[in-house]
């Protein structure tokens, strides 16, 4: 259960942004979580609901965009489907993950007079 430690980092980051912009109250966070990031979205929500109390995120909503994993050949950019052998048949090169492991704070919506 590392989701609590991720939420702790998330709230710290929001606090830093709030300090920079003179923000008082956070209304909404947008985060991007890859399906192969190792973060469970439901656990992240539970952790956020627990930890946001008495922080700048109290009452804030967390919007989570999940990102499906995808791999592609670094030479010909042909994609390799999930569950397949992660190798380009045409070029015989190992495919690279191009998305799906994100743990990203994308955007904060807050009341901020200094912006």
């Amino acid at each position: 259960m590392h989701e609590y430690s991720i939420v702790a980092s998330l709230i710290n980051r929001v606090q830093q942004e709030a300090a920079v912009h003179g923000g008082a109250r956070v209304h909404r966070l947008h985060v991007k979580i890859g399906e192969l990031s190792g973060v469970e979205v439901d656990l992240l929500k539970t952790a956020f609901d627990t930890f946001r109390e008495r922080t700048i995120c109290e009452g804030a909503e967390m919007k989570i965009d999940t990102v499906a994993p995808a791999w592609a050949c670094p030479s010909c950019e042909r994609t390799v489907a999930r569950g397949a052998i992660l190798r380009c048949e045409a070029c015989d090169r190992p495919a690279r993950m191009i998305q799906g492991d994100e743990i990203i704070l994308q955007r904060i919506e807050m009341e901020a007079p200094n912006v």
Partner: protein
Amino acid sequence: MCETCGCGDPEIVPIEVAERILSDNDAQAGHNRSHFAGLGLLAINLMGSPGAGKTAVLEATAKEANGRLKLGAVSGDLATERDADRLNASGIVSATITTGSACHLDARLVHHALHHFPSNDRDIFFIENVGNLVCPAIYDLGQAANVVALSVTEGEDKPLKYPVMFQKADLVLLTKIDLIPHLDFDVAAVEDALARVMPEASLLKVSAKTGEGIDAWLRWLEQRRSAPVERATEGHEHHHHEHQHEHN
């Protein structure tokens, strides 16, 4: 503008961040990486389930190296110092990182351990992570390579069940292969599973008990040591931070 009554006050503004939530850990890991480079040691993050045989592999590695390499290790453990005691007895200079209830090591814990480590004069520095196939994969520690120990008693489908751990691995050590004659374990099936989650699937079969395959593992380490390959970026929207840090 105000969402509840539309009065227009106070203003709600969007602040674009687009940064990894664990960017603090990433920065600390980058800092650890420069420590390791400065000390000229190869740092290996060794992960795997509880009981996969991580400590036994390190004991066998020390035996096989037979004093040719100076080995060091920190072991992440929830409550005890048993692993470090075992490793010290095998000739690996070792310390424990007691994590309490935390299920993984992070870069800050490793940094602290590095500063309190009994010896800076090591060739290879193993970071034996907490036994867990999920959480440790997420945290960069500053290692040169991720190695996952998977024992033959765990089943061939583990890579498909825990893809996050295996996709981050540079090498998988299939451990306890001396038990294969007693099990219905299909090595080809685990190789197939790995190829579906690990783009450059790389597997070495070892037995800490008989010593089989430990020589190949040691060669892999020595090759990494002479030509360290920096692991590609962790994540695709990775931001590097210049990190100033004072040491006491």
